[in-house]
């Protein structure tokens, strides 16, 4: 990768493209009937124009300064963790809090460097279990349960 294409520059480019695409999307026909301040896209257009302008300045600054960002210790593990968090957020309401939290906790503890299987298993079961017990059975504010049992 060329030296000028740093992570910062790529991020600014992504923001620039996103801002431009959003601005273009405001020129759809459905908003044409209303003018000036009464138009629903009047304010967003100002904001998106600022977005693009500021991103351009930040992009130029980043290209000129060539500042790096903090190195990621283990990229692979981080990607696994972020994906696990997103999948977890998606599964909480489908599989229930307990069933989705246990595997997530196992992955999370592993990513953060815990290697003792007993500690991982104990934490992954006990902490979500205590949370379920507390909310479902003591506070009576039920968390999502699995399709298999109303208990967890």
């Amino acid at each position: 990768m060329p030296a000028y294409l740093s992570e910062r520059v790529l991020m600014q480019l992504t923001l620039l493209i996103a801002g431009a695409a959003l601005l273009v999307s405001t020129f759809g026909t459905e908003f044409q009937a209303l003018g000036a301040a009464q138009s629903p896209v009047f304010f967003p257009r100002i904001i998106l124009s600022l977005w693009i302008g500021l991103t351009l300045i930040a992009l130029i600054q980043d290209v000129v300064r060539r500042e790096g960002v903090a190195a990621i210790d283990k990229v692979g593990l981080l990607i696994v963790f972020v994906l696990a968090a997103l999948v977890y957020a998606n599964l909480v309401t489908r599989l229930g809090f307990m069933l989705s939290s246990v595997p997530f906790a196992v992955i999370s503890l592993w990513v953060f460097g815990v290697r003792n299987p007993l500690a991982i298993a104990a934490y992954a079961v006990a902490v979500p279990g205590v949370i379920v017990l507390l909310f479902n059975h003591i506070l009576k504010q039920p968390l999502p349960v699995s399709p298999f049992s109303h208990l967890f």
Partner: protein
Amino acid sequence: MFAALPDAIALLLTNEALLTLLFGTVLGIILGAMPGIGSTVAVAMVLPFTLSMGQAPAILLLLAVYAGSVYGGSISAILINTPGTPQSAATCFDGYPMAQRGEAGKALGWATIASVIGGLVSAVVLLIAAPQLAAFALNFGPVETFALILLGMTCIVSVSSGSLVKGLLAGVIGIFLASVGGDPVTGQPRFTFGNWQLISGFNLLAVVIGIFALSEVFIRASRKPEAVSELAAFRGIVLPRWREWAGRKAGLAKSVLIGNVIGVLPGTGAATAAFISYAEGKRSSPRKEAYGTGEPDGIISSEAANNAVTGGALVPTMALGIPGDAITAVMLATLTLHGITPGFRLMEDNPTLIAAIFAGFFIINLLLLPLGMALGRVAAPILRMREAYMMTGVVLLCAVGIYFVRGNPFDLMVMGFAGVLGFLLRRQGVPMAPLVIGMVLGPTLELTLRQGLILKKGDITLFATEHPIAGTLFVITALALAFPLVRAWLARRAADA
């Protein structure tokens, strides 16, 4: 409002309110003591649980967690040389050296008393200043409100950490995120791209928790665990004797004043106040040579100022609806969710609630003393907890919290993606506070601008020429924008010379 104090005190003496104050302060101290959690994450994590509470207990819980966490940060700063919150970073300079000398209990004693006094004075400032400021803003129309929000946001960006451009960009992204969904004037959906879930917009709490709490977990997962200093020997907090205060009271008063003044200014925050106060203490203290070697004056400078900020930051939040920092922005969002619009009308229409909040804030700061004494020893073992267990717990609690907001699976996904966005932006040096403040203030900014333009028949120059207050605020906004540029230019000139 003072007439409502008896009713407010009666409200505070209910079991629910007392338990809330107690539980919130305990939770705040513990969360604040945990390195990596911090005040903003602590308040964001507690926030969803307030939705099932009444207005007063909900706000009191957040205030208790806020004030408690600012104090709690000093525990880890002194015992393991790692500030639990950024506000306590300056406390490490003298707190840890004292702890290494075997005076950890004494150092925490100085921190506790300084925090309590700073917090109590700031509660009084809040009680006096907020109604005055709100009364001044009583005649503000949409044009003045627009100018005020613009100024508030500019101040926040100008003085927040990092580059001005990136701060502004964060604010703009936040305002844009708030504009997704139904248009506030016509109701037409914007930027929904056919997704019906987006018609009501992004859930603010899901974004806030993702941006602050989840992104913090991602950042910690991306780097090697920090080396933590050895836990200092500690056998409980030892309060300083009266005679030990000789020659230190003026320094304490100065730090409290600095904290209150900085707290009222939008965007500066407790960390800035603590460092400015520490620097001033180091300049003017009779024991300035001892700063950095375990001098109690250093702890007093930092802790009195950072706790004094808490009440000060609430002044513009409660009086004008302009948050002083990211934490008060989160609180402002909670107020809105509870149907409370801060400002003079609130003080006129619901004085009991306001008096209860202000009096409750005073009680919270009083509680810091006994609870700090009691929890100091309990919190110490928590500092030994591995980051892995703490961060995994944070994610689980974030999921629980967001689920309780509306029970909507879409909000959980929003939280996840906001976490990724926060992680990516923070890596590029983009500050997160302006993003959240932009999201909180964006709808009002848009509404007031459009109302003003409709009133002035599209002529924006009339905003300044026909509205002297707004005109003055625009000038101050321009100066606030120019301030970092001038400061950088002066620094370059000084470096060249």
